[in-house]
Structures are given as structure tokens and as C-alpha cells.
């Protein structure tokens, strides 16, 4: 680089311009990046925005075709009020909360125990089972809902929240087990041996070493189980019929659409409140959320 001082002023000038052009190129690239981002953010956020706008309108304003549908002229919370005051919305919300909490708890117990056993206590068939767990995760619910419909009916659980609690784990447990196997496997083997020598039995090892050490992974798995349970649509659609037994994903539509009358303001208000819990979890625990999302593609 010291050679630079030897070049004449004339030679230095084009070199300088070249550097400038790289910088200019970079700036344009960055501007292009921001434009692309802005376009997609607009595209991605339009539906939720429109949801919010509609939910703040009175029925009269929604029905008024002369107005701009993208703005609210007289914002009102009456849609929210009515939803919370009358009808089954609160019941649906409660049902969703109950089902989700129970399913998350059950999922975490099942998958933590299983992942610990599969990651650390090799036994006959454990490797096959781990692969089986992953393949089960790839089974979509549309493949099995019809036989499950029969099975649930046979168990007398048709139109019963218990059916959801029984079946949702098929969607959460495999993935949670799979990513926890990854997290547990990444804990160094010496840690178990140290615990073994310190006098821990297997449950103490799991409870006092593995779970605390793998806490970020456990949190990611919990968030995953929560989102899946909260968002599930097909099973409640197929197995729940009476409004008071429904969860949010199916309840909103079934209650607010009577024949041809769509109460769009209330539908949007209800949808927004139903979307709030996952959005809040996401806002506060984004890193764990993303970790859970991306962990499935790698083992550990």
C-alpha cells in the first residue's frame, strides 16, 4: 500500500473515482434493499392492518360503500365490547386457553422425558425411534383426521374438548421431542458423568442438570407447542360442533356468520384478539421463537 504515495496526482484521481463508484454502488444496493423491504412489509402487514381498521368501525361505517375502506372515520370499540359482553367469544377464548395450556404441559412432559431417554440412555431401537419421531412430525393432520374422527367417536369424545387435548399432542410431541433430542445431545457427556459421580440418579440428572442447561431449547419447544395448539383448525373443525365447546379458530366464524349476514367488524375484532397471544409471545420471545422455528432443520 505504501506504493500509493509514489503515484502521480493524475494517476491517483481515477483510482479515487473507482473507490467512489464502489461506494455509490453500495449505496444504491442499500437503497434497493430498503425499497424491497418496504414493499414486502407493506404486503405482509396489509391484512392485519386492514383487520385492525375494520374492527374499529361501526357496522354502519363498514356497510357504507362510499367511504375509503382503509381508514376509520369514527373509531369505536363497540365491536370489542359486544364480543366480550355477549355471545360465546369469551367462552371460546377460555376453551383455547385451557386446551393450549394442557397440551403444552403434556407435550413438554412427554417430549422432555423421551428426548432425555433417546439422547442419553441408548437402548434397543432408540436410534430407529428417533428417526420415527422425525417422520411422525412430517405427517400432516389432513392425512389422519378421518380415522381419528372415527376413533374419537368410538371413545365418545365427539364434540368434547378432551378430544383436542388427546389429539393435539400428535402435532406437538414429535417436533418438540426431535428438537430436544438435539439440544440434549449437545450437552457434553462429561456433565452427566460428573453428575453421576456427584451422586445424581437419572431423574435428578434430568431435572437438575439437563433441563436447566437446555432451558433455551425447552423454551423454544414450549413456544412451538403453544403456537401449534393455539392455531389448530382442522381438528376442532371436524370434531367440535356446538358453539360452547369450540375454540377460537373455529368459534369466531361459526358464531358471527349467520346465513348471509357477516358481522365483519366483530369478526375482525375477534380475529385480532385471537391473534394477540401468539403475537405477544413472539414480540417478547422472538429469539426463542425463531430458534424453535429453525431448529427442526438440524439436529442440535
Amino acid at each position: 500500500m505504501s506504493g500509493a504515495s509514489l503515484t502521480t496526482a493524475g494517476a491517483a484521481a481515477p483510482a479515487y473515482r473507482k473507490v467512489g463508484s464502489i461506494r455509490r454502488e453500495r449505496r444504491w444496493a442499500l437503497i434497493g434493499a430498503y425499497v424491497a423491504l418496504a414493499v414486502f412489509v407493506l404486503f405482509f402487514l396489509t391484512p392485519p392492518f386492514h383487520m385492525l381498521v375494520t374492527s374499529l368501525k361501526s357496522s354502519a361505517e363498514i356497510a357504507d360503500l362510499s367511504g375509503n375502506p382503509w381508514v376509520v372515520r369514527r373509531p369505536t370499540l363497540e365491536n370489542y365490547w359486544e364480543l366480550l359482553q355477549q355471545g360465546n367469544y369469551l367462552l371460546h377464548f377460555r376453551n383455547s386457553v385451557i386446551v393450549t395450556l394442557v397440551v403444552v404441559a403434556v407435550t413438554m412432559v412427554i417430549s422432555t422425558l423421551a428426548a432425555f431417554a433417546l439422547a442419553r440412555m441408548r437402548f434397543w431401537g432408540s436410534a430407529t425411534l428417533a428417526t420415527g419421531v422425525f417422520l411422525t412430525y412430517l405427517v400432516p393432520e389432513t392425512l389422519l383426521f378421518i380415522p381419528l374422527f372415527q376413533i374419537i367417536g368410538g371413545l365418545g369424545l365427539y364434540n368434547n374438548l378432551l378430544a383436542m387435548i388427546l389429539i393435539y399432542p400428535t402435532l406437538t410431541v414429535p417436533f418438540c421431542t426431535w428438537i430436544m433430542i438435539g439440544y440434549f445431545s449437545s450437552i457434553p457427556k462429561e456433565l452427566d458423568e460428573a453428575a453421576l459421580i456427584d451422586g445424581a440418579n437419572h431423574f435428578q440428572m434430568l431435572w437438575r442438570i439437563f433441563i436447566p442447561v437446555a432451558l433455551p431449547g425447552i423454551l423454544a419447544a414450549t413456544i412451538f407447542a403453544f403456537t401449534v395448539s393455539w392455531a389448530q383448525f382442522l381438528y376442532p373443525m371436524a370434531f367440535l360442533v356446538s358453539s360452547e365447546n369450540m375454540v377460537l379458530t373455529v368459534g369466531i366464524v361459526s358464531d358471527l356468520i349467520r346465513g348471509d349476514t357477516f358481522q365483519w367488524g366483530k369478526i375482525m375484532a375477534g380475529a385480532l384478539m385471537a391473534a394477540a397471544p401468539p403475537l405477544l409471545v413472539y414480540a417478547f420471545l422472538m429469539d426463542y421463537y425463531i430458534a424453535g422455528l429453525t431448529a427442526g432443520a438440524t439436529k442440535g
Partner: protein
Amino acid sequence: MAQVSLRKVVKEYEGGVQAVKGINLEIADHEFVVLVGPSGCGKSTTLRMIAGLEDITAGEIAIGGTVVNDIPPRDRDIAMVFQNYALYPHMTVYENMAFGLTLRRFPKDEIRRRVENAARILDIGELLDRKPKALSGGQRQRVAMGRAIVRDPKVFLFDEPLSNLDAKLRVQMRVEIKKVHQTVRTTTVYVTHDQVEAMTLADRVVVMNQGNIEQVGTPQELYHRPATRFVAGFIGSPAMNMIPARLENSAGALRLHLPGEIVLPVPAERTQRYAPLAGREVLFGLRPEHLTEPKNLDRPNIALVEAAPEVIEPMGMETMMIFSLDGTEVTARLDPAVPVELGRKMPLAADLNQMHLIDPQSGRVL
């Protein structure tokens, strides 16, 4: 009362690898024994069998007179320090050290007393509230030792505890370990592949090779009286020179014929010992520190030879000079003040009082 006995201990891993091939070893109470040997010779396996982390395929291990073959690690009353420390990352230093005692339901104040005592011995009182992540390598090493000390076990087991530290810290921690052992006097089995560590720390060193014990002895014994060619070559740095030679008897005096027309007289006091070997091919072993610039020439059994350096390695406090005898590399250790020049012949003094003869077939030192 915590001697450790290994009787005909065999370890065969699944897949048929015999990692340990029937070793016998008696470790006395309070003794500091170091297992040393090249990578893969079965040191860790032996240690882990003592700890109970590996099944014993055959033979038996007793700790304090009790056969422990079937006793799980937690009931063997041993403590272990791992190469990568294996500290629990989510616990503070205090909790790390207290964990074993908590699991054993010790009363709180007893735990506190022991942890503080260990922290004082190791000088880590300041660190008790920190997490392992916030510690340096040396500090982690101390905590790992602290975790062993608080348990006040019958036996300490160390598996290459220093190999993750840089050279300077390693020397420092070596001293530390020795001091701790002098304080707590717990029977210790220590695994390393570093022979300097072995020599400096051990009361007795166990040299292992390919699943067998080659020799057990004090550092002095191993250095001066190696039993096998392997031990002779393994202990000491740079390694002992081993030169093929022929032992000849000429009129009652034994002579060694080395390559390059070099003939060395065997010391008179060894004549009787070596006489039966006359006429045979042997390996002549001499450590570099016994092949030096001419000095002490007035003493008996110092022989002069001539050699031309092919490589010169100045190390500061000494200079290594390497030459070859018919393809065998030989190292001499010179005072740095001695002038050396590549390719120029110079006289060297071989201290034959320190020579060894090795049977090339059996590998035994004769």
C-alpha cells in the same frame, strides 16, 4: 484407609476392542499415582473403570478393601476431575461445589463449611458467586478440583486435567495440584500423557502401553532403571538414544561395536551382568544428557567419541546436537557455550555409567 487395587482387570469395548488387557496395580493409601502413556493406551479406560463409569469386563477393582465392580459411581465415594472441567454451566461456583453434598443430603451449614474450606485451599473465595462462563481456564480448573475436594472422597481421579490450559498455566496448576495433595492427602489416580507432569507429580508412575502396564515405579526408578525399551524411550525428553550394537568379548573385557567403527568399553562393574550376552545384537541406550561435550574426563567410564553435527537446535539453556550413525539419529546435549558448527567433527563424552542395553527381540532392558 483407601487403597485401590486392580486385579487382572480387563476391559473390552463392544466391537471387540480390548482397551485394557488384564492389569494388576496396588495403590496405597495417600499415594499419588500417575498413569502415563501414549494416546489410546487405555489410561482413561482404566480410570473410568475405577470411577464406575465403565463396566469391568473381567477382573476386579477394590477401593478401601471393598470390591466395587458392581457398585455404581455415586456409591463408590470417589471424586473426579475432567479434562474439560464439566462444570454445571447453570450453577454458580458455590452451587457447583455444593451439588454433590446437596444430593447426599448434607446439612446446609456443613456444606457451607466444606465449600468455604475448599475455596480457601484453592484461593477461589472471591469467585463463589460467579457462573463458570465468567471464569478463566485456570479458575475453572480450580473449581473442578474444589468440587472434588468438598466431597472428601476416598479417592481423587483426574483425567488429563491440565491439557486444556496453556503451557504457563499448566506449570502453575501442576504445582497447585501437588500442594493440594500435600494438604488433603487423599489417594489420587491421575491420568496424563505428559511425562513431565507424571514425573513431577507422582509418588509412583504407571507407564501403560497398548492396554498393558509396562512398568510401575517412582519417577527416579523409571528414569534410571527403565524395565523395557518402551519405558526407556517414553520417559525422558528428548528421548533416549537407541543405537543398534554388537556386544563382543575380547579377552575378558566386553566391548560394544557401534555403527561407524565406534567401539565402546563396557564398564567393568557391569561385565558380569552382560557377559552372557556376548556375541549378540543389542540396542545400546544412552540419554542425550549423558552424551555431552567432553567433561568429567577424570571420572571412570567416560568414553570419547567423535561426531559431526547434522542439525543444531539451540534451546537457550542447552544446545541439542543431532548426528547420525548409519541411519540412526543420535542426540547429544551440549552446554550452549560450546562452539558447534554444522558438519565439523567434534569430540563428545559418553557417560557409560548411565548406559543401558536392551534386547531388541523382547524389548526388555537387560
